[in-house]
């Protein structure tokens, strides 16, 4: 490790716990089985909930990329500025 500001996603447990929880929320294993389902906003209710968590996963992954990943960026950007 070169400095304290290094951020590597693999080293943070909460990231992966969050990822697994989202997967558990996306897959519709927890709904009562059956074909008689309410339709909300054009979707079966379970699919709408699954879609919602799928979108949360998109946002989560995107946010993680930008905010929890920083290893050599500062060094590279400093070099860029110097024109190396």
């Amino acid at each position, binding site marked *: 490790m070169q400095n304290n500001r290094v951020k*590597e*996603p693999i080293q943070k447990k909460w990231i992966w716990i969050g*990822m697994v929880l989202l997967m558990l929320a996306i897959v519709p294993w927890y709904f009562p089985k059956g074909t008689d389902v309410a339709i909300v906003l054009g979707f079966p209710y379970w699919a709408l909930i699954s879609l919602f968590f799928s979108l949360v996963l998109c946002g989560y992954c995107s946010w993680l990329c930008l905010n929890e990943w920083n*290893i050599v960026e500062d060094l590279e950007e400093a070099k860029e500025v110097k024109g190396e």
Partner: protein
Amino acid sequence: MDLAFSGTDGILILAFYAFVMLLIGYLSGRGKDIHNSLSGYYLAGRNLGIIALFFTLYATQYSGNTIVGYTPAAYRTGFSWLQSISFMTIIIGVYLMFAPRLYVIAKRQNFVTPTDWIHYRFKSNAVTILSIFLMLWGLGNYLLEQLVAIGQAVSGLTGGTIPYQFAVIAFVLVMLVYEWMGGMKAVAFTDVMQGIVLMIGIVVFLIGALYLVGGNMGDVTSYIASTEPAKVGVPPLEGSINWFSILILVGFGAAIYPHAVQRIYSSKSERTLKRSFARMAWMPPVTTGLVFVIGIIGIMMFPGLDKAGSEKLVGMMANEIAAIHPIYYWAMVLFFGGIVAAIVSTADSVLLSFSSMLSKDVYGRFINANATEHKKVMVGKFGGIVVVAFLLWLAWNPPATLYEIFVLKFELLVQVAPAFILGLYWNKLSAKPVFWGMLIGALLAGFMTLTGHKTVFGIHGGVIGLGINFLIAVVGSVVVSVSAEQKTEVEEMTSLKVEA
């Protein structure tokens, strides 16, 4: 796919796309000495900026096949095909497991192929050769799938005006020529054009389809609920297990695709890479998500199709949409040209990666290590042509429906994941257990698929193989003793230092 709506117009559009691709290839290679350097030719000099990197990542993960193959999948599966959004998103999650560290090591050690990492980490010919085999198998299968799809899309678009085989050969030649001229740079810049056309095309297609069913998604769902309730119902437990299984299979399989890994190497900087991934994370809802809705609408437009009939769904829907208005007609012609272009854009990335592995891993490592970079590049280029010729021969008799081919390729490819990812972080992971895990995992996955047991309780053979593979690699490495010297060496290898 039988499209009656387009003949000569389709040919004109295809010729236009072909011309643009060739022009981009020419401009990418012009005046640059890319043919004498492996990283210049295969990795665009490790200098891809955010727009090119984003679109080339996009073209790697999404192909014309995403439309041609996933629309029927949604049609047949119903609302549980929503899984296509999550399994495409989870790929970014898996990237977050290994891309940050691999990027640093790859820059430091000048890696060109994914095998460079495997060989550097394990220093074992057995592990290297087995990984090369599994990765080339995956790539070859993926390329074959694209070649089959080009034929179907082209023959649909031109309404049989030009013979199927002629069209495929013409497009493959265009691809080979621009790739020959510009290497990765040509591939990445053609991906920008192809990606934009595909994105716009999907949106226009969806608007047209929605218009035809009266514009209300609620009506579509109510219709399906009354005619085929299983497609809107909560999936049975086995369906949910299968959904988890595919998240693992596609997540790990697609993230360690050789051409996907090489895009990590090609990035200009960490900043560019992570920003491209951050945008990619939002692409599943606007690509596979919209395609899913199109497939669902298809259930109402063309009820009761069997499996073979549903494979032609996109063409049938396009016919109806084209008849709405001349604007839609031209949008559909452009869109189908776009599908062909998108398939070509995926095929070119796969072919380039295949060539790079022939150049560097097979020829450069095991046949003639002292060859010049120019010679290695040339071997890869000619080898690529031979492979395409062989696969074209196979493509005339496509073995299964498109989606089945797609799952098959991951079953074996995914077995490289433990070595690839765990090797980055666990210094005790040793070559021998890794080799046996990979081999037994691949054999089991292959055996299950070949004997018709593709899934057990909804779990894919590839995922079961991966579990056993992982177990053997971990338990074996705990048992095998590693000298202090070896440990220090691996620590050095996997460190986050910038300079060697």
